[in-house]
């Protein structure tokens, strides 16, 4: 946000008060983030269908936009804008209308603390990492809201599964990041990235063996946290039709889709910043930091897509078993191990 406030100060000179600058900077940054989210959904829906097609030995979308169906998402968007907005007669109307926006806002708020490049961060919070985990938990309420308001047993099942899964996997997700916080001594996203300066060997996932395991744990937990395959139990087509967004149409449905892909990119961005050096390049001096950051995050997203279309879905009891009996204990071991490693190598202050 500092970047934007400075920019406006330069453009308008003394014409704007400090409050005006703050509001203008904040609004611009929010707009940019919302646009980034929207473009995420547009690019990733196309990418997902292409990846799925490639893995299943078929083409995926090919017709719209001459080259490999690149304009397919635009066509889809136009189609979805023209769809009728249906509210089921027995639905809980106010909650039904509100739910997609609660999910969307929960996701947008978390974007504020992602450091895309030096100084380019909407809110440079001292509690950045903690803040991201906190506000993204608000989306759980939106899922429950959607499932309940639809007044449909499949939706409710999906919502109950989604909430249980999100609440459970939050724990290994956050625990896996704690070793990094211990090493950096800060929850500020900028500080965490700056601590990884100096090439790939300084990135946190290669810091010590425990951090490597912590990175893997984070990655697996993040797939579960955004409800994607092989952990997509809240929306299993074969059992629940489509889970909590079964009854939604048109723009409201699009908001769920938008939030899903935005969350996918969000968890990848956090992984990039916390474990993979953020905007720092593989070696050498900082070079096109924003682009480096986005490339890393997009590679992680592609990896998640690859896993989604390759692995079969887990059962509900297996899902909880993996979380509580495998990942949580392993994450605790990582925290302990990283602490001992720091003591042994004399990094503990």
């Amino acid at each position, binding site marked *: 946000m500092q970047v934007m406030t400075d920019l406006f100060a330069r453009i308008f000179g003394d014409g704007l008060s400090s409050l005006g600058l703050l509001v203008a900077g904040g609004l611009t940054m929010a707009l940019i983030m919302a646009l980034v989210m929207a473009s995420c959904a547009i690019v990733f829906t196309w990418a997902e269908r292409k990846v799925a097609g490639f893995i299943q030995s078929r083409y995926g979308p090919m017709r719209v936009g001459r080259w490999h169906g690149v304009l397919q998402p635009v066509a889809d968007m136009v189609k979805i804008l023209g769809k009728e907005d249906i509210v089921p007669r027995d639905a809980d109307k106010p909650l039904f209308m509100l739910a997609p926006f*609660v999910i969307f806002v929960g996701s947008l708020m978390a974007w504020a603390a992602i450091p895309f490049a030096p100084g380019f961060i909407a809110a440079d919070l001292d509690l950045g990492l903690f803040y991201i985990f906190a506000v993204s938990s*608000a989306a759980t*309420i939106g899922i429950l809201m959607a499932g309940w308001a639809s007044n449909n047993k499949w939706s409710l099942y999906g919502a109950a599964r989604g909430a*249980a899964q999100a609440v459970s996997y939050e724990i290994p997700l956050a625990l896996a990041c704690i070793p990094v916080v211990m090493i950096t001594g800060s*929850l500020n996203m900028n500080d965490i990235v700056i601590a990884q300066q100096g090439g790939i060997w300084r990135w946190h996932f290669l810091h010590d063996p425990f951090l490597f395991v912590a990175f893997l744990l984070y990655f697996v937990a993040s797939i579960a946290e955004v409800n994607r395959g092989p952990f997509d139990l809240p929306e299993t087509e074969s059992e629940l039709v489509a889970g909590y967004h079964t009854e939604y149409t048109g723009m409201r449905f699009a908001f769920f889709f938008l939030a899903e892909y935005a969350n996918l990119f969000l968890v990848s961005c956090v992984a990039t910043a916390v474990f993979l050096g953020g905007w720092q390049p593989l070696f050498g001096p900082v070079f096109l930091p924003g682009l480096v950051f986005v490339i890393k995050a997009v590679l992680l997203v592609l990896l998640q897509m690859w896993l989604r279309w390759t692995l079969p879905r887990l059962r509900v*009891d297996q899902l909880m078993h993996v979380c509580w009996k495998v990942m949580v204990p392993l994450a605790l071991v990582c925290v302990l191990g990283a602490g001992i490693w720091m003591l042994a190598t004399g990094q503990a202050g």
Partner: protein
Amino acid sequence: MSGDLVFYGFALLTVLSGFFVVASRNVVHAAFSLLFTLFGVAGLYAQLGADFLAVTQTVVYIGGILVLVIFAVMMTRIPRGDAPRRGLDRAVPAAILALLVFALIYMVIVGTRWPERAAGAPEATVAEIGTGLMTTFVFPFEYASLVLLAAMVGAAILIRERAPADDAADADDAAGEGEVRS
């Protein structure tokens, strides 16, 4: 000036949604409306410079407790037909009780000498809190975690007792008892 505006915004959000929680006749609506109340309170904390408290409020109350409350409310059968009794015999005692509680809170607010801090940019509190928890308050901190651990073990045992009786149920039961059979 801008601070006042933000304060009134959050205060309005908290009070209005809080009123809705109490006044709504639909218990699920009341539970969901708590989301906005808790969020407003978090905003007020943040505005007071207690950033750690604000984020903790969000993660504990919105991410944890509210989800549990909503689950509990959704699983409860909403009584149909006979609506709860309304009338003067209920309203009068309730009003007296509410006034007494209000008077008590008012007296506490007026009677307390609030520590005042110089206005200015709020500084980060997290490092201070962390150091405090690990030095001055290490005993209460560890004691609290022990109590919570005991509660967790207790909860796990309560679920376990019932498990052999109905095998079918434990496949659905989520946290803590995902038994895998070969």
